[in-house]
């Protein structure tokens, strides 16, 4: 498009580039620093951005391999990082599959069927979802304590409890999927039903295949939300071996026990895959953030 351009444009472009590069340098500083720290020896040493005495001790510990230094001293890994990562991934995968299954079927009903109290249920879901679950932690704690007395895999200090608790946050996903379903023409399913398909078949074979993109987005969003969930997991999980990454990572930085270098390696090791997944999926996520609202 031919814009009217003032003469100062060239300098402004240059200034913008410079400004953005400076800003990016500032933004990247903490991230580069943590990578650098993970390669430094010792837990307290400060140094330049490029480590003067590069060492793999923190990486070896983060991967769960005891580290032997030149003097022959063996350091044991302080925490089971890989196990935490596995716990997080396990919880996140199971709960996002459940969230996806349940929120898709409810979104279908909300988008396509007519029944009493529909608007009320939808709106109240949205309002209740705004309340921070941190505030009802006491009640959730009591609830799982009580359930755990009768159903052992759902009690305190079990992954089952964290998975089930994460199902409470479904309303947002229901809204997002419903928004997408609304944008698909009903006549497709209508035709299938005229041809003798049941309601369920119309949903399963017509609507679902058309909605794969939004289902992907919801899955990724639910996955990331569960991976990052901190307060609930910190109350429900107790044993070191059962912690998720979000709860466990904190253990490195207690005032009395400041394992800065070990934390750095563990952080890069566990943060990198999530970051890469996020960057890879960012265009869908951005789409998903607005899809529900725009098409409602």
């Amino acid at each position, binding site marked *: 498009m031919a*814009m*009217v*351009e*003032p003469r100062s444009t060239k300098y*402004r*472009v240059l200034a*913008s580039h410079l*400004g*953005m590069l400076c800003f*990016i340098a500032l933004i990247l500083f*903490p*991230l580069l*620093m943590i990578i650098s*720290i993970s390669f430094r020896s010792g837990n*307290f040493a400060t140094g330049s951005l490029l480590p003067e005495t590069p060492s793999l001790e923190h990486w070896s510990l983060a991967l769960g391999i005891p580290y032997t230094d030149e003097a022959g001293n063996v350091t044991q890994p302080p925490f089971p990082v890989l196990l935490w990562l596995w716990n997080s991934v396990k919880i996140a995968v199971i709960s996002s599959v459940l969230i996806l299954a349940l*929120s898709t*079927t*409810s979104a279908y*009903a909300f988008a*396509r069927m007519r*029944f009493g109290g*529909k608007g009320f*249920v939808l*709106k109240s*879901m*949205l*309002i209740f979802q*705004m*309340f*921070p*679950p*941190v*505030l*009802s*932690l006491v*009640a959730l704690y009591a*609830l799982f304590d009580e359930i755990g*007395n*009768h*159903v052992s895999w759902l009690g305190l200090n079990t992954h089952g409890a964290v998975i*089930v608790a994460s199902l*409470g946050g*479904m309303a947002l996903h229901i809204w997002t999927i419903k928004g997408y379903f609304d944008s698909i023409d009903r006549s497709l399913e*209508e035709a299938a*039903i005229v041809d003798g398909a049941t309601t369920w078949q*119309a949903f399963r074979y017509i609507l679902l295949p058309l909605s794969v993109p939004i289902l992907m987005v919801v899955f990724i969003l639910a996955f990331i939300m569960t991976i*990052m969930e*901190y*307060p609930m997991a910190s109350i429900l999980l107790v044993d070191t071996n059962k912690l998720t990454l979000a709860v466990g*990572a*904190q253990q490195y930085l207690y005032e009395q026990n400041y394992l800065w270098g070990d934390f750095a390696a563990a*952080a890069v090791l566990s*943060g990198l895959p*999530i*970051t890469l997944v*996020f*960057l890879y999926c960012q265009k869908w996520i*951005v789409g998903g*953030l*607005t899809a529900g609202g725009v098409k409602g």
Partner: protein
Amino acid sequence: MLTETLSYPRAASKPLMSRNILKWGLMAILVSLALYLILALYAQREFVFAMLFLVLTASAVFVFVNRRMYAHRYIYPAVAGMTLFVIFPLMYTVGIGFTNYSASNLLSFERVQEQILARTYQSEAVRYGYELYQTEQGYVIYLEGQNQNFQSPPFSLENGNAEAVPLRPAASAPTGEPLAMRDIIKNRQALGALTLETEDGRMLTMVGLRDFAGIQPLYELSENGALTNQRTGVTYFPNHDTGFYQSAEGERLSPGWTVNTGWSNYERVITDPTISGPFLQIFAWTLAFSVFTVIFTLILGLLLANLLQWDQIRGKGFYRTMLILPYAVPAFISILVFKGLFNQNFGEINLVLENLFGLRPDWFSDPTMARSMILIVNTWLGYPYMMLLCMGLLQSIPRDLYEASAMDGAGPINNLMNITFPLILKPLAPLLIASFAFNFNNFVLIALLTGGAPDIIGASTPAGTTDLLVSYTYRIAFQDSGQNFGLAAAIATVIFVVVGALSLINLKLSKVKV
């Protein structure tokens, strides 16, 4: 028309017989499991929970059996999940706010009574010296009292006797040599766990290496519900206002039980200066924190979005990926990274500041610095989201508006203030409110970065100058030694009201249609 057809299952599609059996069988199994849970809860006097599961099961059966509720079958699991994990905890929390539920008042009245009645003491009046004999059938114990002697049948000391060993009156000691002192010392632990029962039902346990003595319940329950201490003779009456057994002098027996205390938790929040002072301070900081976060992230996000939107800039993909990085790194990791970088003594940020300007700020012990640090970190974490939103919204602004303004000789600042900002403000408003609400409750940031430190001086509850209302509530409930769940729940209720109002406004502003 269509919705009508969709709402009911078609009569033509008859499921097979076997599928029907499977369906009903599965349902029967699930219902009986749920009923078992409800009965178990009821038996344990957890009426609230029993009620909750009863309602859930009943509604499930109703929805899945009733053909006219076909549409509700699809939404039932989600609605039940919301009820169980969002709405019920919310109601329960509001309920707890009106009680004195805390570490000292954790149990129900019946459980407290049981616990206190189970306490025993050793009556010094009856003491028995004893001898232990080893026979072929096992050990035999012989007790020697002042006017009566007892002997036990052979028993084993190995598998920690759970049942009391019965005693029978004996005229004389059994034949054979009693065990020497060192063998008794060897078996001390097993002997200590041993309970002996006389024929008239008195219980005896070991009080010293050489003695057994009778144990008796410490408290006796009288008709009017009062408990009398058998040793001191003091009578304690149950006080259902405070939730403790109290003597006439006001002495309390712990533990206490949970009772309804009405508005007293709310009154404490308002009237007790050691609570209301910190509460107001934290409330003000929470508001300031949320407002500043929204403003800073919006300014930064809008500015960057504008730059990235500009035709003249090359390499947009690169800039975008770099600028989005703070959003992509998991928050719990970047917050902890900042916690280390800001560390006063060996953090890299202070190192840089000292080398450049000779400064060494106390990021964690000075309230102002701690608050600035939190705002810096949260702006770092939050601007990419705003940037993404603004980029989306900027695309909807017609380009010829800028063309026209360029003709009139307007600069970029004029464009921003008179075209861009007014046009995106309307669609942005509900999102800004949502961002405000999110940061109002930004628990993870505070918990991982400062934990609320530095503390407010003179507060009677754990309260920090950087605590937000949520983290403050969390600390009262889980980190305070008294674990004052009642007070925490009252404060949570206050926050519920604030956030509820916010989300209603949000719903109105965004004009959501169902």
